[in-house]
């Protein structure tokens, strides 16, 4: 089969690989019909995530058709069209039994601090991902779901990570009616977080980024006010001014490890790998909210420490809430919202790349070229 293969930072190509085989009785092999490149894939692409091995296939956002099932699989059959959450999870460990699918303890031998994720380094379990023609899907009775007849494929693929993560980020913010919500980052996750804040009754939603085309999307897709932080001396002071010096009630970090906006943070994280990530957006979030507020973190950071302003967070009495999104837990409600027209995930899609041209897709997405917000990957077998 053809698959994207990591060759080192900023180097990927498409190669021949063996079609994955059943390795556990509850595995399925899925033929990928549509995949996507996630902003967090760029952390891998840039060499930010520890134990990302040469030869690995990335991709944790994909849908497909069941090609083969293991002997204990009961809920899926060959030919089913399925959407697969980015979390790999068993359903039965202490964490899964309580709905924390993203924190599953039975799928990642490499670390206890994070669950299993498709195509996301050995830090997340060492599973090949779905930027390929076929992918191994462990615990087929637990993770995947049939794609509803009425759902578009592009909506479905965005529901495997970006949309539920944004929606989850808004939930972590504990938004109540009338709250002022500030979202850092106008990528797909931030845009959905901003849109979701309205569903939860926000009274005002502000999105901050430095890319004008993404801020335009924040205005049209998420109905948000926008601020380009490069136009202000200090975006934190600007947030204070616009909230009559109270500060926002909720802030959401939808940026994560590779935030721009501070040279020292950028150099120590992206260039020298001395931090798990550049927490510029997180620090701005901490400083932009009012005392007693909630800061939600859904941006991805590496396992190393990061220079986060915990002193300010403590002194302000903030609640910091964060996790990888337990995707399947969000689906029933999100399916309703998509069906009701409250969310239209495919509106975020700007580019479609054949799998054979995925290197170009990574470059365009990474360099923020051509108005790229969300690139979709189409395997040739689809």
């Amino acid at each position, binding site marked *: 089969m053809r698959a994207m293969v990591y060759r080192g930072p900023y180097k990927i190509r498409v190669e021949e690989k063996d079609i994955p085989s059943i390795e556990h009785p509850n595995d399925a092999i899925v033929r990928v019909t549509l995949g996507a490149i996630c902003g967090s894939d760029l952390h891998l692409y840039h060499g930010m995530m520890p134990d990302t*091995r040469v030869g690995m296939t990335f991709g944790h956002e994909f849908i497909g058709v069941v090609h083969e099932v293991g002997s*204990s699989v009961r809920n899926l059959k060959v030919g089913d069209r399925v959407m697969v959450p980015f979390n790999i999870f068993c359903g039965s460990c202490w964490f899964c039994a*309580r709905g924390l699918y993203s924190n599953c303890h039975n799928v990642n031998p490499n670390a206890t601090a994070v669950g299993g994720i498709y195509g996301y380094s050995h830090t997340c*379990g060492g599973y*090949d991902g779905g930027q390929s023609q076929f992918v191994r899907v462990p*615990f087929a009775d637990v993770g995947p779901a049939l794609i509803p007849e009425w759902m578009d494929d592009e909506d479905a693929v965005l529901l495997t990570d970006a949309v539920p993560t944004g929606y989850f980020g808004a939930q972590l913010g504990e938004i109540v009616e009338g709250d002022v919500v500030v979202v850092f980052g106008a990528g797909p996750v931030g845009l959905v977080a901003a849109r979701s804040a309205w569903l939860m009754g926000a009274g005002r939603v502000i999105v901050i980024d430095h890319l004008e085309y993404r801020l335009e999307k924040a205005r049209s897709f998420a109905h948000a006010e926008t601020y380009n932080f490069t136009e202000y001396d200090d975006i934190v002071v600007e947030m204070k001014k616009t909230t009559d010096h109270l500060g926002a009630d909720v802030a959401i970090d939808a940026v994560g490890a590779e935030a721009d906006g501070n040279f020292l943070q950028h150099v120590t994280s992206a260039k020298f790998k001395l931090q798990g990530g550049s927490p510029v957006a997180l620090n701005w979030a901490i400083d932009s909210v009012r005392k007693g507020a909630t800061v939600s973190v859904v941006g991805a950071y590496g396992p190393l420490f990061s220079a986060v302003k915990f002193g300010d967070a403590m002194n302000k009495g903030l609640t910091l809430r964060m996790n990888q999104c337990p995707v399947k837990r969000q689906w029933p409600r999100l399916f309703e919202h998509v069906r009701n027209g409250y969310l239209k995930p495919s509106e975020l899609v700007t580019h479609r790349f054949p799998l054979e041209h995925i290197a170009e897709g990574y470059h365009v997405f990474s360099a923020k070229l051509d108005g790229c917000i969300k690139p979709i990957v189409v395997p040739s077998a689809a």
Partner: protein
Amino acid sequence: MAYTPHRPPLAESADQLRARIPGWGADLDPKDRPSVPKLQFREDLTGAHWEFPDRQPEKWPRERSIEHKFLTPVFGTACPPKGLSGVLRKLSYRRYSEGVPRTGCC
């Protein structure tokens, strides 16, 4: 404002927001959101028909965190450790807990 008991007024009322933004307030009740409360016991184990899963065969000595009690029942098999980097990885996994930087980025 921050210096008095009152919140700064919002520019739009709930009715105005509901009229302008499709779905405004659909998840208004904080208790009626999918991830609230954080811990929710799933009686059906989300489709799992086991309490502890069958073990995936270990075809080579699979490196694992020493913070785990044992090798997890299911694991990825991409890119087994090999060569010098593989030796370093295996040594690192065997020796250090997760709080200690173990391996390089590639």
